[in-house]
């Protein structure tokens, strides 16, 4: 990576993720295992640190991408300075008493449990007993009208999907009438652990922070005072309020597992093997400058410019100076995330225009395009047909561009063409043919690189997907203190005596409120 003569500032390491959307089948295993691990508790029934959305669709919480409404992320003010969209510091403190831009529980959904007991305790009768839904918040029977994946597989799409905030332009009119036939894909989402996190910047208490060692963004539960500004500031709406404790909680990137050198739960359990975890080295001193890039469409390149090449001796020297241990540098060199984001440039960030410099990236899905080629009577295996479709099919392309490149269709198109060329080349090779190297060359891949990328994307061995260096051994003693317990539990048995002031009865007695 050419870094020119620019000097390298403070080098930090970040555990980052890439998801290959073509392989997501929307099974929600990641969401469910995450929920079982982290949010299977009173107060966070509605919180999904990881969720899978069907796109096009309104997402979760509803229309969270509509930043005109929810005021998430950063923007440039009229002087070109980077400011939080929800307003400056003074305005934030003035809205402490009532935050005008906070989603209410209706924007998520009313969490429910079921009258399971009725299944076994109902008196004998002619009808099969049923378990009716009951609101966890009110304890009363309720009708389920929304959920975290209500639109799964475009369910109810004719009614709701037009509310997708990414369907903005006039091209969106076509989508509204055609997309059930033309395209659909799943978008798994979790906290982006941004380089320029808006939630951290909005926290009045300073309870939220980005970890120096691995870039994971966390909420200090002891310091959070429940001012709820983080929820507004996060454009991805991945910070939730625990309504029982009144404190913010968010995706932890499974830090106890990461510290032990294991992948996150969502990655580990991913059935489609579409997730990649690895290190990215970045120049912390250039984050602000990159986030303030004037043109939204340059943000992708600006963010890539913040990342550092772990093979560059100068970078390695600067990283050592910043205290990054040798085994981490080694892991950074083997990082699949670096390969997908920087070497092959097939991964793209979700909504770079929010200017938070997100660190969960996506390989855009080729399948909507292939489906369209098939539907139009073309040959999915003929790169010419697919190339033509990529350039001609405005609907999926512009939609993907809204998601991943701030509307720049050239970049998304380029990635899709690269994937197409790779796909057809490897298909020919597998069938024992020579392989069309001209198509590869057109998208900037050598045969060797194509083999490597194919291995990474399609074969995707566990050890290739997850390169997570364990936290450093010097810290091991401190880490043993946390590895066997839920980090948000109120108090361990071995800790100081429980003080339960301010926590409602609902939380004290888990059986009283019912479990989701």
């Amino acid at each position, binding site marked *: 990576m050419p870094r020119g003569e620019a000097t390298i500032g403070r080098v930090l390491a970040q555990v980052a993720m890439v998801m290959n959307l073509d392989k997501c089948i929307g099974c929600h295993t990641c969401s469910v295992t995450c929920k079982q691990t982290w949010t299977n508790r009173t107060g966070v029934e509605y919180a999904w640190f990881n969720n899978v959305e069907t796109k096009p669709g309104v997402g979760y919480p509803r229309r969270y991408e509509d930043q005109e409404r929810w005021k998430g992320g950063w923007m440039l003010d009229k002087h070109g300075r980077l400011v939080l969209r929800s307003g400056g510091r003074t305005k934030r*403190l003035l809205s402490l*008493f009532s935050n005008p831009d906070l989603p209410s529980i209706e924007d998520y959904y009313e969490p429910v449990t079921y009258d399971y007991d009725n299944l076994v305790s109902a008196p004998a009768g002619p009808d099969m007993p049923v378990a009716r839904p009951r609101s966890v918040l009110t304890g009363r029977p309720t009708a389920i009208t929304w959920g975290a994946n209500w639109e799964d597989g475009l369910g109810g799409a004719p009614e709701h999907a037009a509310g997708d905030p990414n369907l903005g332009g006039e091209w969106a009119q076509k989508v509204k009438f055609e997309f059930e036939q033309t395209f659909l894909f799943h978008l798994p989402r979790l906290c982006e652990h941004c380089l320029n996190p808006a939630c951290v910047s909005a926290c009045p208490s300073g309870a939220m922070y980005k970890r120096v060692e691995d870039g994971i963004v966390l909420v200090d539960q002891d310091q959070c005072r429940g001012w709820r500004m983080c929820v507004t500031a996060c454009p991805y709406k991945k910070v939730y309020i625990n309504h029982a404790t009144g404190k913010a909680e968010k995706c932890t990137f499974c830090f106890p597992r990461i510290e032990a050198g294991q992948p996150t739960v969502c990655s580990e359990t991913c059935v489609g093997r579409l997730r990649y975890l690895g290190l990215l080295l970045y120049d912390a001193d250039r984050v602000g400058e990159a986030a303030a890039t004037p043109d939204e469409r340059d943000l992708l390149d600006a963010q890539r410019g913040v990342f550092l090449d772990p093979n560059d001796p100068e970078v390695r020297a600067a990283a050592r100076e910043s205290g990054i241990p040798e085994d981490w540098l080694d892991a950074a060199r083997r990082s699949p995330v670096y390969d997908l984001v920087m070497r092959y440039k097939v991964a793209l960030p979700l909504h770079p225009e929010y200017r938070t410099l997100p660190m969960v990236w996506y390989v855009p899905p080729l399948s909507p395009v292939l489906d369209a080629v098939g539907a139009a009577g073309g040959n999915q295996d003929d790169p010419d047909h697919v190339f033509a479709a990529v350039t001609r099919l405005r609907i999926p392309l512009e939609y993907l561009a809204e998601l991943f490149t701030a509307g720049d269709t050239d970049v998304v198109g380029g990635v899709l063409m690269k994937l197409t060329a790779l796909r057809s080349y490897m298909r020919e090779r597998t069938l024992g043919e020579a392989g069309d190297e001209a198509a590869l060359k057109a998208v900037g891949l050598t045969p060797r690189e194509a083999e490597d990328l194919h291995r990474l994307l399609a074969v995707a061995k566990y050890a290739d997907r997850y390169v997570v260096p364990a936290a450093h051994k010097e810290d*091991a003693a401190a880490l043993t203190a946390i590895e066997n317990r839920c980090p948000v539990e109120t108090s361990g048995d071995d800790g100081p005596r429980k003080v339960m002031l301010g926590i409602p009865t609902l939380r004290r007695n888990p059986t009283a409120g019912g479990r989701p």
Partner: protein
Amino acid sequence: MNAVSSPLAAAPASGADLLLWVAVPYVCLAVFAVGHVWRYRQDQFGWTSRTTQLLEHRWLRWGSPLFHLGAFMVIAGHVAGLAVPDSWTEAVGISEHAYHTTAVWAGSVAGVAMVTGLGMLCARRLLTRRIRLGTDRSDKLLFPLLSATVLLGITATAAHNVFGPGYDYRATVSVWFRGLFVLQPQPEAISGAPLLFQLHALTACLLFAAWPFTRLVHVWSAPIGYLARPYLVYRRRATTPAAPTAGGLPSPAPGARRAA
């Protein structure tokens, strides 16, 4: 102090007066101070504003700002009325009449805002089932106590100073209040005050005693420092690996333990 108290010291304080106006306030203040230290050391996790905006926002949108802004004005008014002796205000040329006219007007606006806001907050807590079920025992103590204190205060002002002939609490209640803090308690100063003022003072004492055990502690966390701090906050994972005692439980860095 003596100059003010001498005309009031007509009769020596009775036992009841000593109990109500010396013992009770000091006990309450002691509980207030010790309670805060205890809560801060033991219960950082519970130290929060306990927001319920997620569950109900329509009433909160008006009730909470009205209550809080009204409360700020009311507190400022109490500081001026209780802590500043009338001799000082007169020394800078503010006559007794001017002072009281201002106090009654500003106090009425603040009081009405606070009472309206608190009424809305109480109403949503009672009427919204989601919030009522999430109401903690400490809230069940705090809301009635705070409401009683506020209502007694505004009733006393209304009865005596807005519609009544006027009562100069600065010559009685304020003297008693300041006496507590200079460790020269003067129970006789307040023992002759109208009942409403006395009740208001007593409930206020109880409110201070309850303070550290309720959500009122969030007052001390008002995030003023946010105005000056850098936007991005970085922290190291653990400050230092606290003495790796085998088998023992090293205290992790704040944040490492309950990060979510």
